[in-house]
């Protein structure tokens, strides 16, 4: 009867989103007067989950699950939910979780609400607030099935600590053959990803050419940020597609989003609107981004960014 949460790990370590969905699951469990069970795949140490309200961990160790596979992972979560008799399953909205969610939903005959930003406003009927129209509106949705799946938007609910300890037990679901097999993964392991980054530094055509990205990468490094770019920049081939953020690119929901030389087309803003604090640096005071931003600097990126890098370095030293 407990709330089941799928806590994602990478190379054995939990992602921040895993702790966030655990926090969310705890809030739901409190509303329902029940406990939280987490299911993990190949996680090294699960004790951290207790700090975010997890009572019990189902620990799956299986070498066939080394690479993410949506169908297999959905099957793991399904069997965990069935064993626990879970009526609510909480997942993140990482690319992996969004991939497995619809497969899981059909498997569990569960209604699925994605992009949820708050704890349920009601548990009977089970009602959640989710974003719609690419962050331009919210939608109150009821899930009317016996088992419910909630996909919690990254960086929306936040981390809520609960000093408790989680018991851990091995869980060995049967993994069926999957019809999709991963041949190769091309992923920079030393860089923070746009999905996981607290801060994203993004630049646009105002940078004039790919040779000028050095200062963007340096600013990102100082801030521990991921780098991103606007659609024209990726279309021109100045930066890889994987950095394109916006409606048809990757979504961003960081704490801080810094846009440099990006005018702020509506398609771009739609994709980054879920970020909490937006800073724009642009020579054109009429750029639409100034209407969407929290802080703005009207100025030439080639002067502002190097100065900002120096000042941030000094700030870091002073606050170290």
């Amino acid at each position, binding site marked *: 009867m407990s709330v089941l949460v799928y806590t994602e790990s990478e190379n054995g370590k939990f992602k921040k989103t895993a702790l966030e969905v655990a926090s969310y699951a705890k809030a739901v469990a409190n509303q329902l007067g029940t406990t939280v069970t987490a299911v993990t795949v190949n996680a090294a140490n699960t004790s951290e989950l207790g700090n975010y309200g997890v009572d019990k961990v189902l620990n799956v160790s299986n070498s066939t699950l080394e690479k*993410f596979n*949506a169908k297999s992972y959905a099957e793991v979560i399904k069997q965990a939910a069935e064993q626990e008799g879970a009526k609510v399953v909480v997942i993140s909205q*990482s*690319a992996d979780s969004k*991939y497995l*969610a*619809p*497969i899981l*939903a*059909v498997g569990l005959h569960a*209604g*699925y609400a*994605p*992009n949820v930003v708050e704890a349920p406003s009601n548990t009977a009927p089970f009602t959640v607030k989710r*974003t*719609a*129209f*690419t962050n*331009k509106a*919210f*939608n*109150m*949705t*009821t899930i*009317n099935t016996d088992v419910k799946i909630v996909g919690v938007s990254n960086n929306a609910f936040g981390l809520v600590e609960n000093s408790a300890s989680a018991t851990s037990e091995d869980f060995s679901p049967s993994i069926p053959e999957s*019809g*999709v097999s*991963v*041949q190769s993964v*091309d*992923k920079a392991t030393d*860089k923070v990803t*746009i999905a996981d980054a607290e*801060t994203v530094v993004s630049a646009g055509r105002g940078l004039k050419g790919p040779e000028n990205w050095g200062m963007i990468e340096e600013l990102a490094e100082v*801030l521990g940020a991921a780098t991103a770019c606007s*659609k024209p920049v990726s*279309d021109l081939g100045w930066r890889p*597609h*994987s950095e*394109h953020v916006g*409606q*048809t690119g*990757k979504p961003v929901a960081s*704490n*801080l989003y810094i846009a440099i030389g990006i005018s702020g087309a*509506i*398609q771009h803003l739609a994709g980054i609107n879920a970020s*909490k604090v937006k*800073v724009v640096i642009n020579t054109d005071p009429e750029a639409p981004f*100034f*209407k969407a931003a*929290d*802080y*703005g*600097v*009207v*100025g030439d990126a080639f002067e502002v960014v190097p*100065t900002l890098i120096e000042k*941030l370095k000094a*700030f870091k030293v002073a606050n170290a």
Partner: protein
Amino acid sequence: MKILVCISHVPDTTSKINFTDGDSKFDTNGVQFVINPNDEFGLTRAMWFKEKQGASLDVVNVGGVETEPTLRKALAIGADAAIRVNAEAKDGFQVAKELAKVVQDGGYDLVIAGRESIDYNGAMVPGMLSELIGANFVTNCISLDIEGTNATAIREIDGGKETVTTSLPLVIGGQKGLVEESDLRIPNMRGIMMARKKPLTIVEATDAETETASIEFKKPAPKGSVTLVDAGNLDELINLLHNEAKVI
């Protein structure tokens, strides 16, 4: 190869988003509707399969009569035939179930949908459909090649990309990269004329059940105006980000 491309009829990105009937319904007044951008990349990729590998290409939508111009546009771009399932789209599961019947009745072996629609952003219909019809599923797909019944796809993942192999029957959640923006086709006059003569079949809904219900829409609180910082005083920007916004 029989291809079905799922076409979502969505408000153009630049549309003003308003609600009506006590904030329970999207206000379509004055709104321009388009083919969902993620679906359009898939439609163009499917055109290449049609032209280079002799595939047949149908398009489908679950919606009322008001969605037909969007289907006609897909026909003008080059699809052979269109199917409209005559039902109000209420939730992802219901739409997936209606589509599952179309796929099974039509014997399609490749279904291409967008990774998500830009109105509800659920990213659930393609995956649910694959599970309902017992097909393989690859989403966030940025490259797709098919030889016989074997498929090789590249998909975006957080922080990079991966190459997968799979086989038909297959459901794809497509996005930009499947083709580039510059590959998208604008219907020409000949295409538009031909589209009028192509079949647009209306299929009665199976009255598939819903699992979720939309109760009410809300607009975000109006945003405060931007705080401008002088380019010569970036210490102030750092101060605001540290002390006011608390993000550095």
